[in-house]
Each structure stands twice: as C-alpha cells, then as structure tokens.
C-alpha cells in the first residue's frame, strides 16, 4: 500500500473526527430545542456568532488584566456561560413564548427573524472584520502538532493537536448532559415535557421553566461552539453562521429528536464531507451532505433515529 495514501487517509480521518465533534456539538443544541419545544431554531448559527464574539470580548478583557491564560480562559468561559444563559432566557421569554401553539411556518420565520436581528447587533457591535482571539484557549498539553513518522514515507504527519479540544469538549458536554437528563430533577422534567407536554403539566411540571431552561442550555452550547470555531479558525468572524447551517443535514440524518442521532449524524456527515472532498473533488464538501440527506429522507422520512409520529385527525 502506498504510504502516501495511508498518510492522506489518516489525515482525512482525523480532520473528519474533529470536524464531526464540532457538528455534533452544534446539532446537539438544535436537537435539544426541538425535543422539548418542537421548534427548529434557525437562529442557532447566530447564537454561535454571538457566543463567539462575546467570548472574544471576554478574553480580550481578561487579557487586559494581564492574568495567566489558563485562569483567563476559565473566567471567560464561565462568564460566557452566564451571558448565554441570559440571552437564551430573554429570547425564550420575548420571542418564542408568544408563539406557542402557532403553526410551524410562524415559528420557523420567527427564528429566522431573530437570526437577522442577532446578525445586525453583532455587526453593529463588532464590525465585519474577523477578530483573532487575544490568546489561545487550548490547554498547554494539547498545543502543538503530532508528528507521526511513516515508514518509507519520509513525511511526518502534521496533525494540529488543538483539534482534539473539540472532541474533548464534546465528550465532556455529552457526559454532563446525560447525567443531567438521567439524575437531576430538571433533566427528568425536561424529558417528561418532551414526551408529553400535557401529561407533564398535569404532574406539576412548569412548562415555562422547562422551556426557559431548554433555550438557555441551547444558547450555552451554541456559545461554546462559537468560541471553539473561533479557536480552530484562529478568528471569530461573520462566517460562523455558515457552519451552523451545516448542522441541518446532521439533525435530519439522525432524526430531529434524537440526541444519539445528533452525535452519530455529526460524525457521519463530517466523515462523508471530508472523504468526498479529499478523494473526489474539494467542491463536493458543500453539496454531499445535502444529497445524502435527500436520499436518507426518501428511505427513512424521520431520520435514522427519529421517532415516528402517529397522527390523528
């Protein structure tokens, strides 16, 4: 086997995995909202944009204090989480709650309108030029590149170690989310709401609290994803929502309401993208996920893991 081919395969696989972790993280936020509130959030990419820029601002402020990057990162991420919780709660309270019970098209459009508003706010506040982060948020242990010498290839495999950060973050978040859903009172309330809103209400669960919590959680996930993209691409800029758009094939593939589906879908779509662009043609990256999506929808209309809905008149 040609060692160059092996190198290429390894490199593509690694890119696919770290990209997949990112897509899974984004899709997770979308699925979370759909599962408990039946809304597809077309403003998720803009939440990421906002999170990225808020994160950038916080890092800049902490850098101004002249403290250690590790401590600065921790403070900034914590403050980012708080900020995104506030954003999520506000959005739910002001925009989504009045539309509970409206038809699907209204709810889709309101999130689209919201995305325009957030875009405009971010543009007014931070402009259109991509801003590099003041310091890297990658822990020391992950900084640098892996050098793998291939036998006979004479070419080291340069893999950016910080891409591992996404995988690490996603693993931690998934574990935390699972614990939250299995163990905590609110997690169980959220699952109950997702299952049957009326039954949950009659058992004394406050749907409003659950909805507010869901939107805060999705905003936090989006904010973290935005900051990660800022780190991976070395700058936060206006193209972050485009990455958010890439998550739609993922959630359809996995099923709109399946958390496991979001993760499996994220990795499969990213692998598909990377291999297609690496082995066939680079431009295929943008279109292959959508072709795959159409084929899957033809075979399984509710995605691979989605719950089939039974309808009554």
């Amino acid at each position, binding site marked *: 086997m040609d060692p160059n081919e092996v190198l290429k395969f390894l490199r593509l696989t690694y890119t696919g995995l770290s990209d997949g972790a990112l897509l899974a993280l984004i899709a997770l936020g979308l699925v979370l909202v759909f599962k408990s509130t039946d809304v597809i959030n077309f403003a998720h990419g803009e939440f990421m944009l906002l999170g990225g820029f808020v994160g950038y601002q916080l890092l800049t402020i902490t850098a101004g204090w002249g403290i250690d990057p590790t401590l600065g990162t921790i403070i900034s991420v914590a403050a980012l989480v708080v900020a995104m919780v506030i954003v999520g709660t506000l959005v739910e309270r002001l925009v989504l709650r009045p539309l509970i019970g409206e038809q699907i*098209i209204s709810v889709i459009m*309101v999130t689209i309108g919201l995305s325009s508003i957030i875009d405009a706010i971010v*543009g007014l506040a931070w402009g259109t030029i991509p801003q590099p982060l003041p310091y890297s948020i990658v822990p020391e242990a992950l900084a640098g590149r892996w050098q793998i010498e291939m036998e006979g290839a004479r070419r080291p495999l340069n893999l950016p170690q910080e891409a591992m950060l996404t995988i690490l973050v996603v693993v931690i978040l998934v574990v935390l989310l699972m614990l939250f859903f299995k163990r905590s009172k609110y997690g169980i309330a959220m699952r109950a709401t997702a299952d049957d809103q009326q039954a949950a209400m009659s058992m004394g669960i406050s749907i409003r609290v659950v909805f507010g919590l869901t939107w805060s959680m999705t905003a936090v996930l989006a904010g973290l994803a935005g900051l990660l993209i800022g780190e991976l691409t070395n700058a936060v800029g206006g193209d972050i929502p485009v990455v958010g758009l890439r998550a739609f094939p993922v959630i359809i593939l996995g099923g709109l309401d399946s958390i496991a589906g979001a993760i499996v879908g994220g990795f499969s779509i990213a692998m598909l993208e990377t291999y297609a662009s690496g082995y066939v043609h680079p431009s295929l990256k943008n279109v292959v996920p959508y072709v795959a999506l159409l084929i899957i929808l033809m075979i399984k209309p509710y995605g691979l893991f989605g719950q089939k809905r039974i309808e009554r008149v």
Partner: protein
Amino acid sequence: MATQSGIYHETYGSDMQLRPTTMQRVRLALVAALLVVIPFVVDSSTQRLVNTVVIASIGAIGLNVLVGFTGQISLGQGAFLAIGAYACGLLQVYFAVPWPIALLAAAFISALLGGLIGLPSLRLKGLYLAVATLAAQQIVEWVIINWDPIDGEINGRATDALRIPGNALFGNADLRLNNNDTLFYVVAAAILVVVAMATTNLFRTHIGRAFVAIRDQDIAAEVMGVNLYRYKVLAFMVSSFIVGIAGGLLALQSTAISFERFTLSVSIEYLAMIIIGGLGTVSGSIYGAAFIVVLPELLRSVGRALAGTDPASLSEFNRVLPFVQEGVFGVVIVVTLIIEPEGIQRIWRTIKDYFRLWPFSY
C-alpha cells in the same frame, strides 16, 4: 349612514362573482388606473424599484400558492427563481430565442423541475420538508457555481456570472427588456395582473380547494378523496411555474445573472414577504413584496437624509446601514408574527371593518 349586515345574492351569477360589491369594483378600477399611470409619473430610478416590486410580487404569489395555500413550507424559493432565470438566460444565450418564448419556456422548465423537487413531499411534511427544500436550495446553488457551461465571460474574463444578451423582439433593438424600463414595466405588470387573476381564480376550482384542504388537514383531505400525492406535486409545479416566470423576468431585466441573487437569504426574503403580507392571500403577497422591497430603500434614503453631507457621518452611515437594514428586517418579521400573525392583509381588513361597521363595531 346605512351599513349592510351582509351581502345578499339573488342570482347564481352574482354568487359566482369575484368582486360582488360596487366598492370592490371601484377599488379595482383605481388599482388598474394606478398601474397605468405609474410609468408616466415616476422617474427612472423609481421605475426600476417599481419593476423590482412587480417581479417580487409575482414570485411571492408563486411561493404563497405553495406555502400559504397548500401548507408546504419551502426554503427553496431561491432555487426555483434560479431555475427560471437560468433557463430563460441560457435559452437566449445558446439558442437566440426571442424573450417572450424564452420566458414561457423557462416557466415550463421551472414547473417540471419544481415537480421533481416536490417529489419528496409524499413522505415528508412540516419541518422535514422544509429542510429537504433547503437541500434543493443548496444543490441548485452548487450546480450554478460548479457547472461550467452556464458560466459566461465578462470582458474576456471567465466569471460565475451568465451574461444575458437581451434578445430583441422582431429584430428591433428598442424592444429589448434590459435597457428599457418602461417596456419592462408594461410586460411585467401585465404578467402580474394575469398571474394574480389566475391564482385568485385557481382557488375557486376543485384543484385550488384541494390545495387548501391539504393545508388545513391533510389526513382529512385524503379521507375525503383528495389524492394527496398528486395535488402536493401539482402545488409544487404550479408554484414553481409562477416563480419561474419571476425568475425569467429577473434574467430579462438584467444584463448578467449570478448565483448571489438566488441564495438562501433570497428564499428567506420571499418567505418574509408572504408572512408579512399575509399567508394564503393573493393581495397579501403583493403588499408584502412591496413592503420588503421598499423597506431597505426607505431606510437608505432616511439614513442619507439624517447623515447630511458631513463626510464623517456619511462614512458612519455607510458602515451602519447594512446592519440597520438587516436588523429592521428581522424586527419587522418578529413583531408581525407576535402582534398580527395574519399580516398586512389582515390589518387592512381590520381597518376597513372598523369604518364599515362604525360606530357599532363588535
């Protein structure tokens, strides 16, 4: 002043009328008069804006057939427009077809491809269908960018844009649409009138009633004997036929077209038009189209007036304007949905009813 408590029909003829009252006929005459007068009174830049509104109205009516009347959410409006525009443009470039034939052919090609895009609608609905049309949007965009035969060249340099020659009619160079705004207006406004009348009447036939039945409750419609699959695909075809005309007109209006004019944000703009105007109404589509097209221009002129001639405030104005336009666009959508989900059309009716029933409204 005597107020009527209702409209009484004494003959089948009057029952079938589209506009039963005298007031409605008077208003129709006023609108017709307005349409005729416009090219005589406005300057050329306003005429271009009016032309854009007319094209957008046709496109919005087409989208409303699919979304407002049949209830199939589509994020692929940009793709349908692109198909119409490129079909019309390519026919002119490669086969030197005169523009009326190219326009008609573009509408039919668009209807065929629209039916194809509508095929998944048998098994998908709601959000899943919306994302499937998003896929169509992305795929069409990709084809336009990556398929070489439809790229043209400008000044000898290859670009992604397709140059439209603007074929003359009867060999008369004055009868080209892309350099004659008034002629374009006459053609486009005539088409708009035909499309609006045809669509209004469509919903008085069994086909249109079937569309509405599918929107209101698809399972019940099926039980009552509406062939869901046939009518859903038909709705996609009718819709993309009309949108194809709008796309073709876009191509005829311009000297070049490129994918930037058919992106996802265009799809979103059209959705905003029918949401703000009113879902499931023909007049609402026109109000909404006019509103969404004129709004950014209005903001631009207001902003320019506020900025004055000071260079510092002018550069600030240029920096802020695109964001303000986008932000206002979003705010309008959100506020419309929260306050009056049925749109401008409904607000207009409320105002009318207020005066019709005054002083004893209930």
